[in-house]
């Protein structure tokens, strides 16, 4: 994942959690059974979506790093072998 795409995903994740918190804050000013449902279903769902997106972004970034590390190792191995055969 490119840094730009990662940043965009993190922005969306943070915005979703923020929106969830605003919904939860709003539901706390309303004393009605529906407020509880709004808190759990709307606020909770938005926050959970944001957190999952954040974790997924980090995991994909870790995968990308692992791929780069593997590629580096392969290149280094080839160079080492090339050096031995030349010697």
């Amino acid at each position, binding site marked *: 994942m490119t840094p730009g795409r990662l940043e965009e995903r*993190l922005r969306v994740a943070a915005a979703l959690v923020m929106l969830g918190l605003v919904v939860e804050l709003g539901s*706390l000013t309303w004393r009605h059974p529906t407020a*509880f449902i709004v808190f759990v279903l709307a606020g909770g769902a938005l926050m959970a979506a944001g957190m999952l997106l954040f974790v997924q972004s980090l995991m994909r970034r870790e995968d990308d790093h692992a791929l780069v590390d593997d590629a580096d190792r392969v290149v280094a191995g080839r160079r080492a072998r090339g050096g031995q055969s030349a010697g």
Partner: protein
Amino acid sequence: MTLLILLLVVALLLLAPLVLRPSLTLRHGGRLFAFVAIVVVPVAAGFAGLHEHVERTKTVAFCTSCHAMEPYGRSLHVDDVEHLAAQHWQYNRVPQETACFACHTSYTLYGDYQAKLRGLRHVWVQYAGTVPSQIRLYSPYHNRECLHCHDGARSFLESVTHRPELAAIRKNRKSCLTKGCHDQVHDVAHVGSLASWPKEEAK
């Protein structure tokens, strides 16, 4: 409540830099900050909010905010000590603010959770189902809920009417609400025509 609002505001403030400048997370320590701002603080704020909402569900104001429950709320104000719910509420035999929950939760291990699940079902019925014209308990009222407070009290144990029936009452073989005992609980059918106490608070 003030602390909860403060926590939610702090959570929002911590998220603001991530929305405005997500490149912060690419710097050293940025990922840790993002984890705290996106996961740790919002989860803490969410649980605190959930706790506040659950506490609110125990209040009389919450229960009677549904139209179907309004007469039950008014029955707490009936100016007659023979009315069990009114007597308990008016004489502070249950906490006035949480009177409904005090009597209508099962004093068992998972009683509170069962009450909350039933509450969710009530909200569902309110919006997606049909509210029954006459509201009934799911199961006959269990003496355990009365004895949770009354058993062991001198006024209960030494009562001439309770003493000969103690074993039957404790084993729920004879209901506290038996006709002739405490059978007048919520007289919702006539609550509009009964005198109320205190007059200025009754609706």
